[in-house]
């Protein structure tokens, strides 16, 4: 199945939780914010929210800026 992850197409075998998706990507969940289908997810909901075929996911973090 395919999702749109940070604007790019991304392949997944099956629907996964946001927690599992972050683990698969080697991303520390404490340092990012996640938008799922344009809605911001509270961190405590990462384990329960499933990413399905065709979903849009944005994962952002802090970078250098002024």
């Amino acid at each position, binding site marked *: 199945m395919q999702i749109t992850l940070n604007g790019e197409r991304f392949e997944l075998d099956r629907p996964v939780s946001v927690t599992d998706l972050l683990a698969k990507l080697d991303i520390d969940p404490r340092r990012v*914010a996640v938008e799922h289908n344009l809605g*911001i997810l509270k961190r405590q909901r990462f384990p329960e929210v499933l990413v399905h075929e065709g979903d849009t996911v944005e994962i952002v973090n*802090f970078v*250098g800026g*002024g």
Partner: protein
Amino acid sequence: MNDSPFVIGGRTFRSRLIVGTGKYPSNAVMAQAHEASGADMVTVAVRRVNISDRSRESLLDYIDTARMFILPNTAGCYTADEAVRTAHLAREAGLSNWVKLEVIGDERTLFPDNEALIEATRRLVKDGFVVLPYTNDDPIACRKLEDAGAAAVMPLGAPIGSGLGIQNVNNMRIIREFARVPMIVDAGVGTASDAALAMELGADGVLMNTAIAGAQAPVAMATAMRHAIVAGRLAFLAGRIPRKMYATASSPVEGLVGR
């Protein structure tokens, strides 16, 4: 000399210098410059995580978060909607409800779109944010931002990254006189004297990134900025002498030898 504490949105800061985290030669140099600056608030940007290259080190590994308050920005946003969305993401990624609000109106100058900025301020304040908007050096815009609930006003000294110094000294004075919230000069500082001038005009603080990060020796420049902020603040509090056209002798005119 006694000074009132630097308070924004109910939070007290030790330093009146706020520094950025962008464009340093390395994260290690940034960490040293932060230390040298004495700042206890740093700005960061919010961007997509690089999915294909996870090897890049995390910015937060180089910021002492026990000491530094993190102020996320909405740099690169061109509409109120984008800025509000980015602020909400920043709140989820971070630990606070503070935001340095930028809504840019033009790519070449990076001047703010004041109309959208005021709208975004109003919306974010309603959502519970402490909003620090980056704005034009326009006293009326600053007043409207304050009315919209901004916790501080942050007029630009000159375009972002330009290093031109404070272009409209008189407006800065007027903004400071009008504002009931802190005025932080944000952007345009090129060197230490620019920062000192901002403080001499009565600014409550100065925010800068490129002036330090882009200097040939960022750590030395951070030290210079720390001193400039303190010097400028003290000069402001001390009260400068009036400007006069002609000389007034400093030494006595009586008792000159041979007269």
